[in-house]
């Protein structure tokens, strides 16, 4: 039954193979009848990003898959079947039919090395926090999900405060400014239509949800998101959502917003009054008081919009964890490349000295005072923060054309995003950290 359902699911996603007109000339796909299909994730893979989508759809159809951590770049092992082969072929995902003996040999290698096999049992329900009027191609995660063919819902303040996050296993935040200061573009981009629209949307939402100001609304949203993690949710944040989420949490009792956002200037003692015990990842940060500089604090190491403090981009390196002892960070760093070119965002990186001691650094720039990719637990859940805006657009500017991921099917930076998407599918009892 499950396999039949999967065929239907694939058909819905990809369209039928051929209509009645074409059915007569569609060649039969050779179903070699192997025991399993290996989706290698090393350099031989034809489309790394879509391989996640193929695997997701297999799991979504109720079919068990396995993630072979550190085995050929973090490969996937799927049961063989014509629908899966067809899906992979259409996606350009390279697969290798493997028989039981080959699978056994691979398991032997996994057992003897720093590798592990993690069952993937349930396709996570994915939500992306995004304003209703956001442009469709301005979020790396949305682009990755759409490219890989992984379904997702969008949620915003109404859904978050309406208690709907509980429906989802995975929540993504991108460049939302949870300090409620419109990414501090209010003065810089004064008069820009998109900014006026953003202000109107947020102000309207605050009013309808019973908050006096947008910063107050965003603080409430941030708290709800923190509770979602505490209750077992998986949170993945990029760009400025990482930094501002924690600032909003730490500033629960203090005004950190400029006058343009809430009618009153930032509390001059705000730095001192921040309560970092409420935050997820950071501590001891100093706020940027100038409302004209689109920077929030000294959490970000690169300060792309603070002219005098801006740091050049380098490359970050993924850490190598013990697959059998630390499967969570191992899952999150699965990649065919260890060193990845860095990319700017409103928040590009995180200063080491601002991290909480319990944070796990997944990727950093060697010798630099900042890290790029971090993870940690909160309550029953897990959060992961990834600095930067778009892994394939290093200098992303407002108004730049969207990234076309079909030109970057092997993007190691985007793979990190998709590791996070599939991570909640991993069988929980197997995860030791």
């Amino acid at each position, binding site marked *: 039954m499950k396999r039949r359902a999967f065929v239907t699911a694939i058909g819905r996603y*990809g*369209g*039928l*193979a*051929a*209509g009645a*007109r*074409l059915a007569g*000339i*569609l*060649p039969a*796909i050779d179903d070699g009848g192997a025991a399993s299909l290996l989706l290698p994730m090393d350099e031989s893979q034809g489309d790394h990003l879509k391989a996640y989508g193929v695997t997701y759809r297999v799991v979504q159809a109720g079919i068990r898959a396995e993630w072979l951590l550190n085995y050929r770049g973090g490969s996937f092992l799927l049961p063989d079947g014509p629908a899966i082969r*067809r899906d992979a*072929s*259409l*996606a*350009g995902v390279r697969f290798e039919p493997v028989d039981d003996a080959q699978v056994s040999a691979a398991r032997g290698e996994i057992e003897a090395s720093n590798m592990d096999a993690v069952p993937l049992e349930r396709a996570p329900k994915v939500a992306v926090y995004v304003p209703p009027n956001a442009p*469709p*191609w301005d979020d790396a995660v949305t682009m990755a999900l*759409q*490219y890989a*063919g992984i379904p997702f819902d969008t949620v915003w303040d109404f859904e978050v405060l309406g208690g709907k996050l509980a429906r989802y296993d995975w929540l993504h935040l991108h460049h939302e400014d949870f300090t409620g200061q419109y990414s501090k573009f209010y*003065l*810089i*981009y*004064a*008069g*820009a239509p998109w900014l006026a629209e953003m202000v109107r949307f947020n102000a309207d939402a605050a009013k309808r949800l019973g908050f006096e100001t947008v910063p107050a609304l965003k603080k409430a949203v941030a708290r709800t998101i923190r509770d979602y993690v505490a209750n077992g949710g998986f949170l993945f944040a990029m760009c400025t959502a990482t930094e501002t989420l924690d600032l909003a949490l730490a500033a629960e009792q203090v005004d950190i917003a400029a006058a343009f956002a809430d009618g009153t200037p930032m509390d001059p003692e705000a730095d001192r009054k921040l309560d970092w015990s409420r935050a997820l990842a950071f501590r001891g940060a100093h706020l940027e008081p*100038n409302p*004209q*500089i*689109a920077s929030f604090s000294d959490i970000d190491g690169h300060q792309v*919009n*603070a*002219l*005098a*403090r*801006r*740091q050049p981009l380098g490359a970050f390196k993924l850490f190598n964890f013990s697959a059998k002892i630390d499967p969570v960070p191992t899952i999150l760093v699965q990649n065919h490349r260890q060193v990845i070119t860095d990319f700017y965002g409103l928040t590009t990186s995180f200063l080491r000295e601002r991290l909480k001691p319990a944070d796990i650094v997944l990727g950093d720039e060697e010798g630099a005072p900042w890290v790029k990719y971090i993870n940690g637990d909160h309550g029953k859940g897990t959060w992961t923060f990834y600095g930067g805006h778009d892994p394939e657009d290093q200098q992303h500017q*407002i*108004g730049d*054309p*969207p*990234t*076309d*991921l*079909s030109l970057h099917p092997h993007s190691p930076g985007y793979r990190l995003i998709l590791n996070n998407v599939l991570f909640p599918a991993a069988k929980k009892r197997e995860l030791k950290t």
Partner: protein
Amino acid sequence: MRPARSHRSRGQGLSRVGGLALLVLAARSLPAQAIGQGFELERGGQFAQAAAIYFATLRAEPTNLSALLGLERVLPGLGRLPELLPVAQRATSASPANGALRSVLLRTYVGLNEPDSARAVAQRWIAAAPRDEAPYREWAIALEDQRRHEAARAVLVDGRRALGRPEAFGIELAELAARSGEWEGAAREWAAALSGAPAQLPYAASELGEAPAPHRDRIARVLTAGDPPPLTRRLAGELLLNWGQPERAWAVYAPSLAAPSADAAVAARHFADLAAARTTPAARRVRALALARYAELATGPVAGRARAEAARALLEIGDRVAARGVLEAVARDSTAPADAQALAQTTLVAALIDGGQLGEAAQRLARETRLTEEDRATLRLRLARGWIAQGEVDRADATVAPDSSVEALALKGWIALYRGGLKEAEQLFRAAGPYAGDRRDATDRTETLALLERVAADSFAELGGALLALARGDSARAAAALRHAADHPLARASGRPDILLLAGRVGARLGPVEQQAALAVFAEVVRTDGSGAAAPAAELEWACLLERRLQPADAIQHLEHLILSYPGSAVVPEARRELDRAKGAIPKS
């Protein structure tokens, strides 16, 4: 009094300048080995040990500036900045006239957030040297290092007032304003500063060029208000050019070149070079205008070359009248160097060809003696292509007849093809090889060779005529002629799917009627070509046309069929991309 400045990169602000200047001073008085050990330890990251060496040095020599600066570098990282204060105080007391030592003390107080003490040190220094900019500058640098932009700005503004020099600290204030996001203020300061420091124009353009997009128009308004002086105009022009407004840039910039001078000539050339980095039509146009102005301003042997270059740029933007005027000036100029004359003549003949005046171009080409052989050969090829575009295949043939270069062989191949000589064309294309002409020429030849290999006939006038119509840009006639040629017995014997595919490709880019015919053509090729290369290519074209006709579901069916049916086809990667696009998995481009 201002330290020498050069065009600095970002992140090397006020503090670096001051710091470097002090280091240079310090280097002269290094007491040698002990301090050298300190430097080595510091370089190795052993800051605590380095600090011990520096303290030891200061015990022996309290005014040792190198040791003080070393402590200033290492103590903050160790969280021990307060320890710098007593040694800095002792050094200043021992040598009260030493400005570098005063600077260290000042920075230490600022770093320790003791503003009153810092102010007292600065005021003592100002009292001792009332005409000196250094106390204000060092104080401001210290504040800026602590990211206290407003306080730094206030110090400089006070200094400007106290010194009675309105132009003082202009660059520093401009930098501070930019860092605070006050871009209009920065523009005003830069405009004022440039009058006393014209060499800073590139730095000003670099700094203001970083302004976020929303500020740019306001900056331009500040710089162009009223009738600004030439340097301000040039700054505004450079900025506008870099911000993608070339015509507005030239309108602002050009008046600064009105008075002939060597400086104006250099500025005109500089603007042209900046514009050359952009490829938009407007940028090419202003580049041509700047080059034309440069040609007017240039003197001596470079003038002739400048005119020829300007003419070429004017031709590239389609301003043949202006180009011709410039070229004729070169032709009349007996003092112009021979290479400039040759360049002018080449450009003139090229202009005639591009303007369709092929007869006059041929005459000039025949009688002009100043052309180099290489230019003559290039122009012959261009002229032959011009004749082909007018359907004059025989004249084209006569034009390239004496030429045996690979480019000429390739062109002769096309001429043979248009006359229907398929075999001859194939031989000539092979003789020309894969590298003749530019990349597009080579690609066209390769595609045509693939077609000729499928059509086994030696001669095929109907196909040649159809391809000539295509070369002349008559796509509708070409599409019909290709479909007609595909019905010819020669095509039915071999090559029919490939000719139909070409007909479909041409028709697919035309109007609805031709598109409908193209759809039928693609369907026939997919149905009849079996495992040939034309079938997947036709199915891809079919799908793309359906997408353009807003039938994405049908397009998706074809793309999936293509990918699954012809997994080894060269068009599969492109089909996958189209599939992504049709499904909305990637943005429409």
